[in-house]
Protein backbone atom coordinates (compact mmCIF):
# COMPACT_ATOMS: atom_id res chain seq x y z
CA UNK A 1 0.00 0.00 0.00
CA UNK A 2 1.31 3.47 -0.92
CA UNK A 3 2.56 5.55 1.98
CA UNK A 4 0.33 8.50 2.74
CA UNK A 5 0.77 11.73 4.64
CA UNK A 6 -1.35 14.67 5.64
CA UNK A 7 -0.20 17.93 4.08
CA UNK A 8 -1.17 21.41 5.08
CA UNK A 9 -0.97 23.97 2.27
CA UNK A 10 -1.19 27.63 3.25
CA UNK A 11 -1.77 30.16 0.47
CA UNK A 12 -1.66 33.93 0.53
CA UNK A 13 -3.38 35.37 -2.53
CA UNK A 14 -3.03 39.04 -3.29
CA UNK A 15 -5.57 40.64 -5.63
CA UNK A 16 -3.75 42.18 -8.59
CA UNK A 17 -6.98 43.54 -10.00
CA UNK A 18 -10.33 44.42 -8.47
CA UNK A 19 -12.16 41.32 -7.32
CA UNK A 20 -15.88 40.67 -7.67
CA UNK A 21 -16.72 37.50 -5.80
CA UNK A 22 -20.31 38.45 -5.23
CA UNK A 23 -23.15 37.04 -3.22
CA UNK A 24 -26.05 38.47 -5.15
CA UNK A 25 -27.68 41.48 -6.63
CA UNK A 26 -29.58 44.26 -4.88
CA UNK A 27 -31.49 46.21 -7.52
CA UNK A 28 -28.96 46.54 -10.32
CA UNK A 29 -25.99 46.54 -7.97
CA UNK A 30 -23.86 43.52 -7.22
CA UNK A 31 -22.87 43.01 -3.60
CA UNK A 32 -19.59 41.50 -2.47
CA UNK A 33 -19.91 38.18 -0.67
CA UNK A 34 -19.46 38.58 3.07
CA UNK A 35 -19.53 36.43 6.17
CA UNK A 36 -20.18 37.29 9.78
CA UNK A 37 -17.21 37.48 12.12
CA UNK A 38 -17.33 37.97 15.84
CA UNK A 39 -14.90 40.72 16.85
CA UNK A 40 -14.12 42.71 19.98
CA UNK A 41 -16.44 45.37 18.59
CA UNK A 42 -19.30 42.94 17.94
CA UNK A 43 -20.49 41.18 14.81
CA UNK A 44 -18.94 42.39 11.56
CA UNK A 45 -19.55 41.20 8.01
CA UNK A 46 -16.34 41.03 6.00
CA UNK A 47 -15.61 39.98 2.40
CA UNK A 48 -14.80 36.32 1.92
CA UNK A 49 -13.90 33.90 -0.88
CA UNK A 50 -16.03 30.79 -0.66
CA UNK A 51 -14.28 27.46 -0.29
CA UNK A 52 -16.55 26.13 -3.00
CA UNK A 53 -15.29 28.70 -5.52
CA UNK A 54 -11.66 28.23 -4.53
CA UNK A 55 -11.92 24.45 -4.76
CA UNK A 56 -13.47 24.60 -8.19
CA UNK A 57 -11.20 27.24 -9.69
CA UNK A 58 -7.95 26.05 -8.14
CA UNK A 59 -8.32 22.29 -8.10
CA UNK A 60 -11.21 20.77 -9.97
CA UNK A 61 -11.29 22.85 -13.13
CA UNK A 62 -7.55 22.96 -13.95
CA UNK A 63 -7.19 19.35 -12.81
CA UNK A 64 -10.01 18.14 -15.06
CA UNK A 65 -8.86 20.23 -17.99
CA UNK A 66 -5.41 18.76 -17.67
CA UNK A 67 -6.84 15.23 -17.89
CA UNK A 68 -8.94 16.08 -20.94
CA UNK A 69 -5.88 17.49 -22.71
CA UNK A 70 -3.47 14.76 -21.57
CA UNK A 71 -5.84 11.99 -22.67
CA UNK A 72 -6.82 13.81 -25.87
CA UNK A 73 -10.50 13.67 -24.99
CA UNK A 74 -11.42 17.11 -26.27
CA UNK A 75 -14.70 16.74 -28.15
CA UNK A 76 -14.99 13.09 -27.17
CA UNK A 77 -16.81 13.33 -23.85
CA UNK A 78 -20.51 13.16 -23.21
CA UNK A 79 -22.20 15.85 -21.14
CA UNK A 80 -22.49 13.43 -18.21
CA UNK A 81 -18.78 12.68 -18.37
CA UNK A 82 -17.94 16.37 -18.59
CA UNK A 83 -20.22 17.18 -15.67
CA UNK A 84 -18.61 14.43 -13.65
CA UNK A 85 -15.09 15.66 -14.37
CA UNK A 86 -15.74 19.39 -14.10
CA UNK A 87 -18.53 19.57 -11.54
CA UNK A 88 -18.50 16.32 -9.58
CA UNK A 89 -21.45 14.59 -11.21
CA UNK A 90 -24.91 13.70 -9.90
CA UNK A 91 -26.57 10.70 -8.35
CA UNK A 92 -28.86 9.86 -11.26
CA UNK A 93 -29.84 6.27 -10.52
CA UNK A 94 -32.63 5.46 -8.09
CA UNK A 95 -30.63 2.91 -6.12
CA UNK A 96 -27.34 3.78 -4.50
CA UNK A 97 -24.67 1.12 -4.49
CA UNK A 98 -21.41 1.22 -2.57
CA UNK A 99 -18.72 -0.71 -4.37
CA UNK A 100 -15.37 -0.54 -2.63
CA UNK A 101 -13.59 -2.25 -5.50
CA UNK A 102 -14.90 0.32 -7.95
CA UNK A 103 -13.87 3.07 -5.56
CA UNK A 104 -10.36 1.60 -5.35
CA UNK A 105 -10.18 1.52 -9.12
CA UNK A 106 -11.49 5.06 -9.37
CA UNK A 107 -8.90 6.34 -6.89
CA UNK A 108 -6.10 4.53 -8.72
CA UNK A 109 -7.04 5.95 -12.11
CA UNK A 110 -8.09 9.43 -10.98
CA UNK A 111 -5.97 10.90 -8.14
CA UNK A 112 -7.92 14.12 -8.80
CA UNK A 113 -11.13 12.38 -7.73
CA UNK A 114 -9.39 10.81 -4.74
CA UNK A 115 -8.70 14.42 -3.70
CA UNK A 116 -12.01 16.13 -4.33
CA UNK A 117 -14.54 13.30 -4.41
CA UNK A 118 -17.43 12.90 -6.81
CA UNK A 119 -20.83 11.48 -7.37
CA UNK A 120 -21.00 8.53 -9.74
CA UNK A 121 -24.50 7.76 -11.11
CA UNK A 122 -25.16 5.42 -8.18
CA UNK A 123 -22.42 6.09 -5.63
CA UNK A 124 -21.18 9.09 -3.72
CA UNK A 125 -17.42 9.03 -3.24
CA UNK A 126 -15.86 11.24 -0.56
CA UNK A 127 -12.65 13.12 -1.24
CA UNK A 128 -9.73 13.73 1.06
CA UNK A 129 -9.13 17.42 0.49
CA UNK A 130 -10.41 20.10 2.83
CA UNK A 131 -10.46 23.48 1.13
CA UNK A 132 -10.46 26.50 3.41
CA UNK A 133 -12.41 29.65 2.75
CA UNK A 134 -10.50 32.76 1.72
CA UNK A 135 -10.07 34.96 4.80
CA UNK A 136 -9.52 38.63 4.05
CA UNK A 137 -6.39 39.98 5.69
CA UNK A 138 -8.04 42.69 7.77
CA UNK A 139 -8.37 43.81 11.36
CA UNK A 140 -11.73 42.09 11.90
CA UNK A 141 -10.16 38.75 10.93
CA UNK A 142 -7.02 39.19 13.02
CA UNK A 143 -7.76 36.35 15.45
CA UNK A 144 -8.76 34.04 12.60
CA UNK A 145 -5.56 34.79 10.68
CA UNK A 146 -3.55 34.02 13.77
CA UNK A 147 -5.34 30.70 14.14
CA UNK A 148 -5.00 29.77 10.45
CA UNK A 149 -1.29 30.41 9.99
CA UNK A 150 1.45 27.94 10.89
CA UNK A 151 2.87 28.17 14.37
CA UNK A 152 5.46 30.88 14.78
CA UNK A 153 4.12 33.13 12.02
CA UNK A 154 3.71 36.16 14.19
CA UNK A 155 2.59 39.46 12.72
CA UNK A 156 1.07 42.72 13.87
CA UNK A 157 -2.52 41.64 13.25
CA UNK A 158 -4.00 44.39 15.44
CA UNK A 159 -2.60 47.08 13.12
CA UNK A 160 -4.30 45.69 10.02
CA UNK A 161 -6.70 47.92 8.16
CA UNK A 162 -10.40 47.48 8.60
CA UNK A 163 -12.26 45.36 6.01
CA UNK A 164 -14.11 48.43 4.73
CA UNK A 165 -10.80 49.84 3.50
CA UNK A 166 -10.69 47.07 0.94
CA UNK A 167 -14.12 47.62 -0.58
CA UNK A 168 -14.81 49.96 -3.46
CA UNK A 169 -17.47 50.60 -6.07
CA UNK A 170 -17.22 49.96 -9.78
CA UNK A 171 -19.53 51.01 -12.57
CA UNK A 172 -19.84 50.14 -16.23
CA UNK A 173 -22.13 51.24 -19.02
CA UNK A 174 -23.54 48.91 -21.62
CA UNK A 175 -23.91 51.14 -24.60
CA UNK A 176 -26.45 51.18 -27.39
CA UNK A 177 -25.54 50.55 -31.03
CA UNK A 178 -27.65 53.55 -31.98
CA UNK A 179 -24.99 55.67 -30.28
CA UNK A 180 -21.81 53.71 -30.96
CA UNK A 181 -22.53 52.46 -34.50
CA UNK A 182 -24.76 55.19 -35.82
CA UNK A 183 -23.51 54.65 -39.36
CA UNK A 184 -24.68 51.03 -39.26
CA UNK A 185 -28.01 51.54 -37.51
CA UNK A 186 -31.13 50.79 -39.54
CA UNK A 187 -32.62 53.86 -41.13
CA UNK A 188 -36.17 52.58 -41.50
CA UNK A 189 -37.38 54.55 -38.51
CA UNK A 190 -37.62 51.70 -36.01
CA UNK A 191 -38.50 52.99 -32.57
CA UNK A 192 -37.42 51.10 -29.50
CA UNK A 193 -36.41 51.80 -25.93
CA UNK A 194 -32.76 52.60 -25.47
CA UNK A 195 -30.57 49.62 -24.68
CA UNK A 196 -28.18 51.82 -22.70
CA UNK A 197 -27.65 50.25 -19.27
CA UNK A 198 -25.61 51.40 -16.30
CA UNK A 199 -24.61 48.61 -13.98
CA UNK A 200 -22.15 48.32 -11.16
CA UNK A 201 -21.51 47.07 -7.72
CA UNK A 202 -19.03 46.51 -4.98
CA UNK A 203 -15.60 45.07 -5.42
CA UNK A 204 -12.61 44.20 -3.30
CA UNK A 205 -9.73 46.46 -4.31
CA UNK A 206 -6.45 45.41 -5.89
CA UNK A 207 -3.85 44.90 -3.21
CA UNK A 208 -6.20 43.20 -0.77
CA UNK A 209 -4.97 39.79 0.34
CA UNK A 210 -6.77 36.58 1.27
CA UNK A 211 -5.38 33.76 3.34
CA UNK A 212 -6.65 30.37 2.28
CA UNK A 213 -5.38 26.85 1.94
CA UNK A 214 -5.92 23.14 1.86
CA UNK A 215 -5.63 20.20 4.18
CA UNK A 216 -4.87 17.11 2.10
CA UNK A 217 -5.64 14.23 4.46
CA UNK A 218 -3.78 10.93 4.12
CA UNK A 219 -2.77 11.39 0.51
CA UNK A 220 0.07 9.93 -1.53
CA UNK A 221 2.50 11.57 -3.92
CA UNK A 222 0.05 11.26 -6.82
CA UNK A 223 -2.70 13.21 -5.10
CA UNK A 224 -0.28 15.83 -3.86
CA UNK A 225 1.28 16.08 -7.33
CA UNK A 226 -2.19 16.52 -8.80
CA UNK A 227 -3.00 19.30 -6.32
CA UNK A 228 0.26 21.16 -6.91
CA UNK A 229 -0.05 20.84 -10.68
CA UNK A 230 -3.60 22.19 -10.55
CA UNK A 231 -2.45 25.13 -8.44
CA UNK A 232 0.28 25.92 -10.96
CA UNK A 233 -2.07 25.56 -13.93
CA UNK A 234 -4.58 27.86 -12.24
CA UNK A 235 -1.94 30.52 -11.64
CA UNK A 236 -0.46 30.10 -15.12
CA UNK A 237 -3.89 30.68 -16.67
CA UNK A 238 -4.58 33.92 -14.87
CA UNK A 239 -5.31 32.73 -11.34
CA UNK A 240 -8.76 34.25 -11.30
CA UNK A 241 -11.54 33.93 -8.78
CA UNK A 242 -15.05 35.37 -8.78
CA UNK A 243 -16.90 36.85 -11.72
CA UNK A 244 -16.13 39.19 -14.59
CA UNK A 245 -12.70 37.80 -15.41
CA UNK A 246 -13.58 38.79 -18.96
CA UNK A 247 -13.38 42.41 -17.82
CA UNK A 248 -10.10 41.88 -15.99
CA UNK A 249 -11.52 41.28 -12.52
CA UNK A 250 -10.45 38.69 -10.00
CA UNK A 251 -6.77 38.10 -10.69
CA UNK A 252 -4.82 36.70 -7.77
CA UNK A 253 -1.09 36.28 -7.27
CA UNK A 254 -0.60 33.38 -4.91
CA UNK A 255 2.31 32.28 -2.77
CA UNK A 256 2.41 28.88 -1.15
CA UNK A 257 3.68 27.15 1.97
CA UNK A 258 3.58 23.36 2.32
CA UNK A 259 4.06 21.43 5.53
CA UNK A 260 5.72 18.99 5.63
CA UNK A 261 8.08 20.12 2.90
CA UNK A 262 8.10 18.08 -0.28
CA UNK A 263 9.94 17.92 -3.60
CA UNK A 264 7.25 19.58 -5.69
CA UNK A 265 8.80 18.85 -9.08
CA UNK A 266 9.15 15.16 -8.25
CA UNK A 267 5.56 14.64 -7.15
CA UNK A 268 4.20 16.59 -10.13
CA UNK A 269 6.33 14.51 -12.52
CA UNK A 270 5.13 11.34 -10.79
CA UNK A 271 1.52 12.44 -11.25
CA UNK A 272 1.89 13.37 -14.94
CA UNK A 273 3.64 10.06 -15.63
CA UNK A 274 0.81 8.26 -13.89
CA UNK A 275 -1.83 10.11 -15.93
CA UNK A 276 -0.07 9.09 -19.12
CA UNK A 277 0.18 5.47 -18.04
CA UNK A 278 -3.50 4.94 -17.18
CA UNK A 279 -5.05 6.70 -20.15
CA UNK A 280 -6.82 3.73 -21.74
CA UNK A 281 -8.00 2.30 -18.42
CA UNK A 282 -9.35 5.70 -17.37
CA UNK A 283 -11.22 6.15 -20.63
CA UNK A 284 -12.67 2.66 -20.24
CA UNK A 285 -13.76 3.58 -16.71
CA UNK A 286 -15.45 6.72 -18.00
CA UNK A 287 -17.25 4.79 -20.72
CA UNK A 288 -18.17 1.99 -18.33
CA UNK A 289 -19.78 4.29 -15.82
CA UNK A 290 -21.25 6.90 -18.13
CA UNK A 291 -22.70 6.41 -21.55
CA UNK A 292 -20.13 7.78 -24.00
CA UNK A 293 -21.29 10.02 -26.82
CA UNK A 294 -22.41 7.61 -29.59
CA UNK A 295 -20.96 9.52 -32.47
CA UNK A 296 -17.54 9.63 -30.83
CA UNK A 297 -17.46 6.13 -29.38
CA UNK A 298 -16.11 4.51 -32.51
CA UNK A 299 -13.70 7.25 -33.38
CA UNK A 300 -11.88 7.15 -30.03
CA UNK A 301 -8.46 5.78 -30.61
CA UNK A 302 -6.28 4.03 -28.15
CA UNK A 303 -3.23 6.10 -27.32
CA UNK A 304 0.05 4.58 -26.32
CA UNK A 305 1.21 5.61 -22.89
Amino acid sequence: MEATKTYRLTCLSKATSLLTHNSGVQGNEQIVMREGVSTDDGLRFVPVLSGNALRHRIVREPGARYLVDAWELRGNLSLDQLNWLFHGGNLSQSTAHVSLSRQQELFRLFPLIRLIGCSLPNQIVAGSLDCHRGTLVCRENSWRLKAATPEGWQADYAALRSAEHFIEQYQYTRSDARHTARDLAPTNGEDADSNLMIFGGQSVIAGAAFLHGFLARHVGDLELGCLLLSLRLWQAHGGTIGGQASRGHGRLATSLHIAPDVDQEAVIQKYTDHVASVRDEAVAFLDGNFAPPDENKKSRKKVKA
Partner: protein
Amino acid sequence: MNTPQLPPLPKLDAAAFRRELAGLTDPQAPKAMSADYKELASEFCRLLAKRFNRDQLDALTLWDRIATAVTTACGKVDDGDLDRLICLALETIKADVSLAASDQELAYWIGTVTERDESWRLGFVRYLKQHTLTVIVHGRRLWEITKDTRREEREAVVNGSN
Protein backbone atom coordinates in the same frame (compact mmCIF):
# COMPACT_ATOMS: atom_id res chain seq x y z
CA MET B 1 4.71 12.39 -20.54
CA ASN B 2 6.63 15.60 -19.90
CA THR B 3 5.60 17.73 -16.99
CA PRO B 4 4.10 21.00 -18.23
CA GLN B 5 6.70 23.73 -17.85
CA LEU B 6 5.02 25.76 -15.17
CA PRO B 7 6.87 27.96 -12.73
CA PRO B 8 6.46 27.06 -9.05
CA LEU B 9 4.37 29.37 -6.94
CA PRO B 10 6.41 31.86 -4.90
CA LYS B 11 7.35 30.45 -1.53
CA LEU B 12 5.41 31.68 1.46
CA ASP B 13 7.16 31.63 4.80
CA ALA B 14 6.92 33.57 8.05
CA ALA B 15 9.10 36.41 6.76
CA ALA B 16 7.24 36.74 3.44
CA PHE B 17 3.93 36.62 5.29
CA ARG B 18 4.99 39.42 7.66
CA ARG B 19 6.17 41.52 4.70
CA GLU B 20 2.83 41.13 2.94
CA LEU B 21 0.91 42.01 6.06
CA ALA B 22 3.05 45.07 6.68
CA GLY B 23 1.63 46.55 3.48
CA LEU B 24 -1.90 46.08 4.74
CA THR B 25 -1.54 47.75 8.10
CA ASP B 26 -2.68 51.14 9.23
CA PRO B 27 -1.19 51.84 12.63
CA GLN B 28 -2.75 55.33 12.64
CA ALA B 29 -6.29 53.99 12.64
CA PRO B 30 -7.74 54.25 16.13
CA LYS B 31 -11.38 53.32 16.50
CA ALA B 32 -12.38 56.88 17.44
CA MET B 33 -11.20 58.21 14.08
CA SER B 34 -14.53 57.95 12.30
CA ALA B 35 -16.12 60.29 14.87
CA ASP B 36 -13.31 62.74 14.14
CA TYR B 37 -13.94 62.41 10.39
CA LYS B 38 -17.67 62.89 10.85
CA GLU B 39 -17.30 66.10 12.81
CA LEU B 40 -14.77 67.64 10.45
CA ALA B 41 -16.59 66.52 7.30
CA SER B 42 -19.86 68.00 8.57
CA GLU B 43 -18.08 71.23 9.39
CA PHE B 44 -16.62 71.24 5.86
CA CYS B 45 -20.13 71.13 4.40
CA ARG B 46 -21.25 73.92 6.70
CA LEU B 47 -18.33 76.05 5.56
CA LEU B 48 -19.14 75.33 1.93
CA ALA B 49 -22.71 76.50 2.58
CA LYS B 50 -21.29 79.63 4.13
CA ARG B 51 -19.03 80.33 1.16
CA PHE B 52 -21.61 79.33 -1.50
CA ASN B 53 -21.78 82.16 -4.03
CA ARG B 54 -25.44 83.16 -3.96
CA ASP B 55 -24.83 85.97 -6.47
CA GLN B 56 -23.75 83.61 -9.23
CA LEU B 57 -25.60 80.43 -8.32
CA ASP B 58 -29.23 79.67 -7.54
CA ALA B 59 -29.59 79.38 -3.76
CA LEU B 60 -32.16 76.61 -4.28
CA THR B 61 -29.36 74.41 -5.61
CA LEU B 62 -27.22 74.98 -2.51
CA TRP B 63 -27.05 71.40 -1.22
CA ASP B 64 -27.06 69.76 -4.64
CA ARG B 65 -24.08 71.92 -5.55
CA ILE B 66 -22.31 71.10 -2.31
CA ALA B 67 -22.91 67.39 -2.83
CA THR B 68 -21.48 67.70 -6.34
CA ALA B 69 -18.55 69.71 -4.99
CA VAL B 70 -17.69 67.06 -2.42
CA THR B 71 -18.17 64.10 -4.79
CA THR B 72 -16.20 65.66 -7.63
CA ALA B 73 -13.37 66.82 -5.39
CA CYS B 74 -13.08 63.36 -3.79
CA GLY B 75 -13.13 61.75 -7.23
CA LYS B 76 -10.22 63.91 -8.35
CA VAL B 77 -8.06 63.65 -5.24
CA ASP B 78 -6.74 60.20 -4.43
CA ASP B 79 -3.49 61.10 -2.69
CA GLY B 80 -4.80 62.78 0.45
CA ASP B 81 -3.97 66.26 -0.87
CA LEU B 82 -6.64 68.05 1.14
CA ASP B 83 -5.51 71.51 0.01
CA ARG B 84 -6.43 70.52 -3.52
CA LEU B 85 -9.68 68.89 -2.44
CA ILE B 86 -10.77 72.05 -0.61
CA CYS B 87 -9.75 74.20 -3.57
CA LEU B 88 -11.78 72.06 -6.00
CA ALA B 89 -14.84 72.13 -3.76
CA LEU B 90 -14.66 75.91 -3.32
CA GLU B 91 -14.34 76.33 -7.08
CA THR B 92 -17.45 74.21 -7.70
CA ILE B 93 -19.54 76.48 -5.45
CA LYS B 94 -17.88 79.53 -7.02
CA ALA B 95 -16.67 80.81 -3.67
CA ASP B 96 -15.63 84.44 -3.67
CA VAL B 97 -11.85 84.51 -3.29
CA SER B 98 -11.74 87.60 -1.04
CA LEU B 99 -14.44 86.29 1.27
CA ALA B 100 -12.85 82.83 1.44
CA ALA B 101 -9.45 84.34 2.17
CA SER B 102 -10.81 86.40 5.03
CA ASP B 103 -12.95 83.64 6.54
CA GLN B 104 -11.36 82.83 9.92
CA GLU B 105 -13.45 79.69 10.43
CA LEU B 106 -12.45 78.33 7.02
CA ALA B 107 -8.80 79.13 7.66
CA TYR B 108 -8.93 77.36 11.02
CA TRP B 109 -10.63 74.30 9.51
CA ILE B 110 -8.11 74.11 6.65
CA GLY B 111 -5.27 74.35 9.16
CA THR B 112 -6.82 71.58 11.26
CA VAL B 113 -7.18 69.02 8.48
CA THR B 114 -4.20 69.74 6.23
CA GLU B 115 -1.65 69.40 9.02
CA ARG B 116 -2.68 65.83 9.82
CA ASP B 117 -0.50 62.95 8.66
CA GLU B 118 -1.00 61.27 5.30
CA SER B 119 -2.79 58.21 6.68
CA TRP B 120 -5.40 60.42 8.36
CA ARG B 121 -5.86 62.57 5.24
CA LEU B 122 -6.33 59.53 3.02
CA GLY B 123 -8.86 58.19 5.49
CA PHE B 124 -10.69 61.52 5.50
CA VAL B 125 -11.05 61.57 1.71
CA ARG B 126 -12.28 58.01 1.83
CA TYR B 127 -14.77 58.90 4.56
CA LEU B 128 -16.09 61.86 2.56
CA LYS B 129 -16.41 59.67 -0.53
CA GLN B 130 -18.32 56.95 1.28
CA HIS B 131 -20.50 59.17 3.46
CA THR B 132 -21.30 62.07 1.16
CA LEU B 133 -25.04 62.08 1.72
CA THR B 134 -24.96 61.83 5.51
CA VAL B 135 -22.17 64.37 5.70
CA ILE B 136 -24.40 66.77 3.74
CA VAL B 137 -27.25 66.11 6.16
CA HIS B 138 -25.05 66.83 9.19
CA GLY B 139 -23.56 69.85 7.44
CA ARG B 140 -26.99 71.24 6.74
CA ARG B 141 -27.99 70.81 10.38
CA LEU B 142 -24.90 72.75 11.44
CA TRP B 143 -25.66 75.41 8.85
CA GLU B 144 -29.21 75.81 10.22
CA ILE B 145 -27.75 76.29 13.72
CA THR B 146 -25.37 78.91 12.34
CA LYS B 147 -28.25 80.75 10.69
CA ASP B 148 -30.31 80.65 13.90
CA THR B 149 -27.37 81.99 15.89
CA ARG B 150 -26.82 84.79 13.39
CA ARG B 151 -30.53 85.65 13.49
CA GLU B 152 -30.52 85.78 17.27
CA GLU B 153 -27.40 87.95 17.23
CA ARG B 154 -29.02 90.33 14.72
CA GLU B 155 -32.19 90.49 16.78
CA ALA B 156 -30.15 91.15 19.92
CA VAL B 157 -28.37 94.00 18.16
CA VAL B 158 -31.66 95.43 16.90
CA ASN B 159 -33.29 95.10 20.34
CA GLY B 160 -30.21 96.58 21.99
CA SER B 161 -30.20 99.61 19.72
CA ASN B 162 -33.89 100.22 20.40
